[in-house]
C-alpha cells in the first residue's frame, strides 16, 4: 500500500478539534498509541474531492509549541517531524474557536510559521454569533495568507468547503506562508499582540453577551450554593445508581434464571451441567446484573464532562485538593476513577507536574470504581435493612455513600502522606481555562456508553467467565467423599485454608479467603466467586443473587460483612489498574509500591472495622 498523505488536526484545547475530527472521518477511525509514550494516537481516513484518500491524525490540544505535558510534547514532536512512529504531516488543519480568536490565533500564527500548507477551520461560528460576534473569514484569510473556512463541526457545517481547501493544500497549489522558523519561537507577548490585531481586523461587530453562561456560573461557582450543588449532584448520582437500576436488574436476573432453568431441564445431573450452571451462569450472571448501575454512573460522568460542569467542580474543589498537596485539576481524573481507575489514571496525563500526577495515579484506585459496586451492593443488600431514614433517603444508599466517602477520605490521607514523603515537591498550582457550558449531545453520550458497556461485557465474557470456570474446577476437585464438605475438601478450599490464617484476625472467613484469590483479576469477580462457592455448597437451590444473599445472611456475621466492605474500599484488586499504572509510570516501581501500600491499608482498615464492630456488639 502506498503511503497516504498525512494531514494533522491541531489547535488549542476547547476548540472543538475532536468534534471536527469525528465529523470528517465518521466511523473510519483508529485509536492507537505513539511508541514509547502513553499518548493515544487518533487517526482516520478521509476522501478528498478527487476521491484520493488521505490520513487524518488528531493531535492533542495545546496552547503553544512549548509543551508542558506528555500530550503536548507529542504535538510538538509530530509538527517538527521528530515523533517516533509518525511522519511529518503534509498539511495542517488548524482549528480555532471563532468566539476566542485572541487566544487561538496566537497559536495559529506559530503553526502557520512552521511553513506547512495550512487550512484554518474557524470552528463553532454558530456559538460565536450567539455570543454577539460577527466575523469576516475573508478578512482573516487576507491577513493570514491562508484559507479560513467557517465550520460548525457538531452540525457538520462547512465540511465540504473545508475538504476542497484541504485538497488544494495537499496538492500544494494553495498559497503557503513562507517558512519562518523564528516566528515559531517569537516571544509569546509579540505573537499575542499580533493575534489581537488580527482578531480586531476580522471582527465586524461585537456585542458583549454570554449572559446565560455567567448566570449559570453565578450559581455553580457561588461560595455557598456551588458546593451545595456539587454535593447534591453527587448524592443524586449515587441514589440514581441504586433506584433507577432496580427494574433492568430484575430483567437480567430473570434472563439468567431462565437460562439456568433451561439447562437444568435439558441436561442430566452431571459435571458438565454443574460447570455450566454452578460455574459459568452463577459467576457471569452475578456480574452482568450490575451493568445497569455501571451505565447509570457513566451516564452522569459523561454528561457532567460534556456539559462543561466538570471544570467548575475542579474550581470548587481546588482549595480542598490544595490542602492535601494536589490541585483542582486532579479532581477530573479522580471523578472518572469512580467509574473505573483505568480511564482515570489515563486522564492524569493532563496534569503537567510530574509529582502531582504520580500522587494522583497512586490514589486513583481509592476512588470507588464501578467494579466495586457489585461487591458493595450484594453485601449491603444482605446486611443493611432497606429502611428509609428520611423521605427518599434510604439507609442502604446512605451506607453506600459512606463507603464512597471512606474511599475519598482514604485518598486524601494517602495524598497528604505521599506528598510529604515519596512524592515530595512544590505545589504545581492551578490554572485552567473554564469552557463555556454546552448542551451535551445525545449521540456523544450514547457512543461513550456503548463503548463502556462493550468493555464491561467483554470482561464478563472473558476474564470473569474464565476465572469462574477455573474456580469451579478448583472447587469441584478432588471430589469429596460422602459426608465431607465439598468446599473444604477441594483444592481451592485447601488454598483458602492457608490464606485464612492470615486474614482470620480481621474477621474474614473461608468463603472470603476463597473469593480473594480470583478477585485479584477483577474486583467484581469476588461476587461471582462467592456465588460459585455457594452454588457448589448449596445444591438444593438454583444459583442467583437471591441464593447468594440468603447464604450470606446465614454464614457471615455483621462485623465480617463490614470488614469485607472496608477491605474493598482499599484493596488494589484489579490487574488492569496495576497494568495501566506500570504503563503510565514506565516501570514496576510505582505499581508495586501502590499494591503494597493499598494492601497494607486494606488489612489495617478492615481489621479496625471488624474489631470495633465486635466491640460494639454488632
Amino acid at each position, binding site marked *: 500500500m502506498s503511503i497516504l498523505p498525512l494531514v494533522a488536526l491541531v489547535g488549542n484545547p476547547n476548540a472543538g478539534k475532536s468534534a471536527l475530527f469525528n465529523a470528517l472521518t465518521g466511523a473510519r477511525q483508529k485509536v492507537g498509541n505513539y511508541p514509547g509514550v502513553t499518548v493515544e494516537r487518533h487517526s482516520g481516513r478521509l476522501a478528498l474531492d478527487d476521491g484520493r484518500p488521505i490520513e487524518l491524525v488528531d493531535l492533542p490540544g495545546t*496552547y*503553544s509549541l*512549548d509543551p*508542558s505535558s506528555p500530550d503536548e510534547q507529542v504535538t510538538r514532536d509530530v509538527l517538527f517531524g521528530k515523533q517516533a512512529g509518525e511522519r511529518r504531516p503534509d498539511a495542517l488543519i488548524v482549528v480555532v474557536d471563532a*468566539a*476566542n*480568536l*485572541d*487566544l487561538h490565533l*496566537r497559536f495559529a500564527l506559530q503553526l502557520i510559521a512552521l511553513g506547512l500548507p495550512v487550512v484554518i477551520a474557524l470552528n463553532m461560528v454558530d456559538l460565536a454569533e450567539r*455570543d454577539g*460576534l460577527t466575523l469576516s473569514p475573508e478578512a482573516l484569510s487576507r491577513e493570514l495568507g491562508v484559507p479560513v473556512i467557517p465550520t460548525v463541526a457538531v452540525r457538520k457545517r462547512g465540511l465540504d468547503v473545508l475538504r476542497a481547501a484541504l485538497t488544494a493544500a495537499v496538492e500544494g497549489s494553495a498559497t503557503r506562508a513562507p517558512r519562518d522558523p523564528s516566528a515559531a519561537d517569537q516571544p*509569546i*507577548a509579540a505573537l*499575542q499582540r499580533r493575534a489581537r490585531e488580527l482578531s480586531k481586523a476580522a471582527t465586524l461587530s461585537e456585542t458583549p453577551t*454570554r449572559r446565560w453562561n*455567567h448566570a449559570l*456560573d*453565578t450559581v455553580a*461557582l*457561588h*461560595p455557598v450554593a*456551588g*458546593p451545595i450543588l456539587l454535593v447534591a449532584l453527587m448524592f443524586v448520582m449515587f441514589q440514581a445508581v441504586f433506584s433507577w437500576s432496580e427494574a433492568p436488574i430484575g430483567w437480567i436476573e430473570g434472563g439468567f434464571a431462565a437460562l439456568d432453568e433451561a439447562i437444568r431441564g435439558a441436561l442430566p445431573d452431571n459435571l458438565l451441567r454443574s460447570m455450566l450452571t454452578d460455574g459459568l451462569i452463577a459467576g457471569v450472571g452475578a456480574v452482568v446484573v450490575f451493568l445497569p448501575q455501571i451505565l447509570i454512573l457513566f451516564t452522569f460522568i459523561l454528561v457532567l464532562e460534556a456539559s462543561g460542569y466538570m*471544570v467548575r467542580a*475542579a*474550581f*470548587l474543589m*481546588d*482549595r480542598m485538593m*490544595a490542602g492535601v498537596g494536589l490541585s*483542582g485539576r486532579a479532581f477530573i481524573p479522580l471523578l472518572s476513577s469512580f467509574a473505573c481507575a483505568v480511564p482515570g489514571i489515563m486522564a492524569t496525563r493532563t496534569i*503537567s*507536574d510530574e509529582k502531582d500526577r504520580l500522587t494522583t495515579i497512586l490514589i486513583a484506585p481509592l476512588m470507588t470504581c464501578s467494579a466495586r459496586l457489585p461487591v458493595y451492593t450484594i453485601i449491603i443488600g444482605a446486611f443493611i435493612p432497606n429502611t428509609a431514614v428520611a423521605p427518599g433517603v434510604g439507609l442502604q444508599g446512605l451506607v453506600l455513600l459512606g463507603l464512597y466517602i471512606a474511599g475519598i477520605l482514604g485518598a486524601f490521607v494517602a495524598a497528604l502522606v505521599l506528598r510529604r514523603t515519596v512524592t515530595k515537591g*512544590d505545589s*504545581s*498550582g*492551578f*490554572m*485552567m*481555562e*473554564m469552557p463555556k457550558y454546552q448542551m451535551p449531545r445525545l449521540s456523544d453520550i450514547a457512543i461513550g456508553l456503548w463503548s463502556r458497556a462493550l468493555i464491561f461485557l467483554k470482561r464478563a465474557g472473558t476474564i470473569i467467565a474464565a476465572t469462574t470456570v477455573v474456580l469451579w474446577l478448583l472447587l469441584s476437585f478432588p471430589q469429596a467423599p460422602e459426608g465431607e464438605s465439598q468446599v473444604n475438601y477441594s483444592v481451592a478450599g485447601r488454598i483458602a485454608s492457608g490464606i485464612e490464617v492470615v486474614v482470620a484476625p480481621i474477621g474474614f472467613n473461608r468463603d472470603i479467603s476463597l473469593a480473594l484469590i480470583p478477585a485479584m483479576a477483577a474486583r467484581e469477580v469476588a461476587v461471582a466467586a462467592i456465588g460459585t462457592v455457594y452454588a457448589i455448597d448449596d445444591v438444593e437451590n438454583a444459583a442467583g443473587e437471591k441464593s447468594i444473599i440468603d447464604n450470606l445472611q446465614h454464614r457471615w456475621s455483621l462485623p465480617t460483612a463490614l470488614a469485607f466492605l472496608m477491605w474493598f474500599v482499599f484493596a488494589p484488586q484489579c490487574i488492569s489498574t496495576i497494568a495501566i499504572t506500570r504503563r503510565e509510570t514506565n516501570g514496576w516501581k510505582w505499581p508495586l509500591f501502590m499494591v503494597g501500600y493499598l494492601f497494607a491499608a486494606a488489612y489495617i482498615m478492615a481489621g479496625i472495622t471488624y474489631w470495633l464492630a465486635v466491640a460494639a456488639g454488632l
Partner: protein
Amino acid sequence: MLAPASLPLESLPVRRPATITTIAWDRLAAPEARRLREFGFEVGVHVEILHRAALFRGPVACRIGRMTVALRRNVAAAITVMAD
C-alpha cells in the same frame, strides 16, 4: 473623587473591569508564568474577576478576552491592576 489606584487582581471587586499594570513574573513558578502568558496575561490587557471561591480563599475565575480562566490566589496576587 479619588484617582483610581493600583491594586492586586486578587483584591479587585467582582465584576469590576480593570487593566493590568504590572505582573511580578519573578513571583511565579516557571510553568505557571508560561501558562499565564499563554492565556494572554500581559500589561495593558483588560481583565475582570467573575467569581471567587470564597471558602478558605479558593481560586478566582478571571475573564480575559472572551475567555474565563481559573487562577489561584497567589497568582492573582502577583498581578497588579488599575480599575477602569
